[in-house]
């Protein structure tokens, strides 16, 4: 399952979605919005996605991961729109027969997602806002 959503992400639901009788392990990565960046207080975050391309790029990452590790089931869900501090911005769940694969695949997917998937984060401070990573 790959999904871009403006709704809060329910981890139990994702865990059900990836459940598989042959799975011995599920690793779930949850990226949450932090209250600070480099010491500066963040009050809110805003995510924007080029949705159809984002879904295709996530699929490519999952396909690459599936060639490297035994993945029985997966779910990748990313929020768009306003996300309050402490909420889940992204959740990745990977079910595998053995746990090493679950950790490696999950880490690979979040690492690659951050590099290539067309999603943008705007951090809002008390005195302004900034598109993360846009500038050197």
């Amino acid at each position, binding site marked *: 399952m790959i999904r871009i959503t403006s709704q809060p992400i329910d981890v139990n639901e994702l865990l059900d979605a990836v459940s598989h009788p042959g799975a011995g392990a599920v690793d779930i990565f949850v990226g949450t919005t932090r209250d600070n960046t480099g010491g500066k207080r963040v009050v809110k975050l805003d995510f*924007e996605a080029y949705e159809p391309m984002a879904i295709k790029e996530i699929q490519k990452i999952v396909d690459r991961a599936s060639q490297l590790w035994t993945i029985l089931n997966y779910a990748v869900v990313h929020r768009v729109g306003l996300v309050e501090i402490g909420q889940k*911005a992204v959740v990745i769940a990977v079910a595998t027969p053995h746990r090493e694969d679950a950790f490696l695949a999950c880490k690979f997917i979040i690492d690659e997602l951050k*590099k290539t998937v*067309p*999603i*943008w984060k705007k951090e809002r401070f008390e005195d302004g806002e900034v*598109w993360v*990573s846009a500038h050197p």
Partner: protein
Amino acid sequence: MQISILAFGIARDILGTSTFDMEIKDGQTVAEIVDELKSKYAAFNKLNSVLLAVNEDYVDDDYIVQQGDELAIIPPVSGG
């Protein structure tokens, strides 16, 4: 020919719109279109990177834009 370009994130802010039409010459590559955007909008030069996706896919710099292509300006991504 006229092509339609989508703009996201800071690119949308720089252009003040999320979609616009641009007149391009036959045989123009995405790299040339990026250069044109940078010369028209100086703010693009300050970004870490500016890519043009074509039909929801990353393409090489020398990709020649075709009539009907959907182009999208991809500033540095920051999802996750």
